[in-house]
């Protein structure tokens, strides 16, 4: 069965279960309220919802935030109900914006945030907890910071481990190369965690393919034009020795494809990552052999939803198991066989998600090395 089918089926089942669960949860909440079961951990009423992130010019963050907007719309509010805190890549701004908003809302706040870098997560979480507000984090936090150390106020953390999925796409690539020849890797910004993990994924896979040589790995900074130039330089250095290309993401793959086209090379095996719509089209045409979709729309929506529902008391985070507090986001593999199906169900219509199915598509508890 294809990855997509499995994913969708899993989704549907989970959704059904959780709808029931959610109905029960809301019912319980109403009952508790009518019975005047006082608020020991004072749940908030009608908290403000905010997303704090880098900026919207990047398609990835655009998707994340569109998920946050879809979530607030599901509450019957307008898009504008979501407050945007834009840090422009500055941790200091990220923290000071959060503090201002906490002061403004008097702690009546459900916050979804990527704190820009890992060390900034602790001061953000501490300020939020101190103000009695609720926060869910995405991507960045240090390994020693855990939601369960903050009672209910630090609701959850979601991240992705790209090593496993990148290894899987690497295997698809290495098989397509017939298990021999030379592969080059074009990576993201060298210090970025996903860039490191995606290269590691390739290296892990290569251990099982002794006849394939990793000719070179160079950073292409997630940038199409840079990737284009790096790939053409690779062609000078290695020429026909290159029989496969492993790209750290889709934008890099576009640049690689054009560098190959300039040389009249049409059938080079290439794999990439991210599942952008154009990459999915290219997978459908067989020009890219595989890419990985991490569903940023869902990730952005569910992070806001977790903070919000914890804030209004739909569930009590401290009663949830650890794998519901720190977990990996979803990964969906897209190969030429299922590209068309994927496009139909994820790109042509953005699925309407059940934003109370908090953990359905997630991918297990975060493991630390």
């Amino acid at each position, binding site marked *: 069965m294809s990855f997509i089918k499995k994913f969708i089926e899993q989704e549907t089942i989970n959704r059904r279960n959780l709808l029931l669960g959610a109905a029960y949860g809301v019912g319980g909440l109403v009952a508790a309220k009518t019975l005047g079961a006082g608020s020991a951990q004072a749940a908030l009423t009608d908290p403000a919802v905010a997303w704090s992130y880098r900026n*919207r*010019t*990047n*398609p990835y963050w*655009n998707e994340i935030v569109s998920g946050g907007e879809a979530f607030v719309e599901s509450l019957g509010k307008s898009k504008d109900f979501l407050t945007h805190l834009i840090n422009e890549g500055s941790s200091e701004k990220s923290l000071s914006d959060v503090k201002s908003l906490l002061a403004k809302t008097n702690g009546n706040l459900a916050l979804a945030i990527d704190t820009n870098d890992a060390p900034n997560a602790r001061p953000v979480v501490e300020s939020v907890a101190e103000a009695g507000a609720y926060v869910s984090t995405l991507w960045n936090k240090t390994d020693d910071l855990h939601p369960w150390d903050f009672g209910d106020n630090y609701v959850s953390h979601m991240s992705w481990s790209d090593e496993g999925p990148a290894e899987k796409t690497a295997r698809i690539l290495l098989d397509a190369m017939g298990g021999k020849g030379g592969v080059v890797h074009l*990576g993201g910004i*060298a210090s970025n965690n996903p860039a490191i993990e995606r290269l590691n994924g390739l290296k892990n896979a290569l251990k099982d393919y002794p006849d394939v040589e990793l000719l*070179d*790995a*160079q*950073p292409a900074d997630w*940038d*199409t*034009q*840079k990737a*284009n*130039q*790096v790939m*053409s*330089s*690779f*062609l*000078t*250095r290695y*020429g026909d020795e290159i029989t496969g290309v492993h790209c750290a993401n889709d934008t890099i793959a*576009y*640049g690689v494809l*054009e560098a190959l*086209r*300039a*040389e*009249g090379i049409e059938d080079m095996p290439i794999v990439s990552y991210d599942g952008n719509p*154009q990459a999915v089209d290219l997978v459908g045409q067989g020009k890219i052999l595989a890419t990985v979709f991490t569903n940023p729309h869902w990730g952005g929506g569910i992070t806001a939803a977790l903070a919000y529902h914890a804030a209004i008391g739909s569930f009590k985070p401290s009663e949830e198991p650890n794998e519901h507090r720190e977990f990996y986001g979803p990964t969906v593999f897209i190969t030429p066989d299922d590209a068309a199906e994927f496009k139909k169900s994820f790109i042509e219509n953005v699925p309407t998600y059940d934003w109370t199915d908090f953990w359905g598509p997630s991918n297990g508890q975060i493991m630390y090395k």
Partner: protein
Amino acid sequence: MNDLLTRDMLVKWAPLIVLIVLVLMFALIEPRFFSVRNFARIGISSAPALMVAIGVTFIIIMGSIDLSMEGTVSVCAVAFAFCFLALGGTLWSAAWLALPLALVVGAVIGLINGLVHVKLKIPSFMASLAMGFVGTGFALLLTGGDRVRIEDEAFRSLLTVRWFNFPIMCYVALAFLLIAWFIQTRTTLGRNFYAVGGGEELAHASGLNVNRVRVLGFMLAGVFYAVGALLAVGRIGIAETATGSNFMFVSITSVVVGGTALWGGIGGVFNTLIGVLIVNVIGNGMVVVGLPGYVQDGVLGLLVIIAVVLSTDRKSVDFVK
């Protein structure tokens, strides 16, 4: 003393010598660097950058600076792509009108840029930097963060069709280089750029409308940015907000490395050609000889400093700002 070896001659030819030394150095380390196919690759990566760098050369000769190229290139690329697709999506239809339209868009942005600088009396550094941000924001507004693909075979022949081993875009860039050279040496406007850069007060006192020259300079730069945008789209087949990324560093560096002085009045478009080639030879060469990625940025910075030291005549200025 031998006439061929005077200081002036040496300074004049230093950028070319730097380029030749670099090529020989990379060729010695990795013989595969020295092949026609690789020169074609360097040509492809240089062509859009050359257009942008020529644009800013005119501004720098005037002693001003223009940092709006990233925004301008993005807006021109996106505007071109949308019009091209709306008018038929292939060069063999009315869509070819998108080409001149992109140049007009570039000129208009340059005009606004120049007027903001001259009329509001904002230093060109700040005015153009701000215009660049406006441009990037506007391009984002147009695309909504998406990429626009240009698939038309005729337009993409800029990259895919080769004459004498070099793709058409290299010849287009060469043609525009000649046009720029013509403007620089054979028109009043071109000579006025040097007059303004060499001594603005003097130029003004001799009856030259300096403000008009400045505005025209920014417009002309905008047109060349637009040509750069078209070649950049031709190279990767995608127009997006990020199309303009990195052009600021590459173009300013190239102009300076080529021997055009940032204080104005010295240099020209052929210096810029050499400068662009130096920067791209370094970029290509470092990957070809296999320097690790994390060393490359540092080495590029060092080589740029060395190239500037060798190729500009610092004796002729009293102070550096």
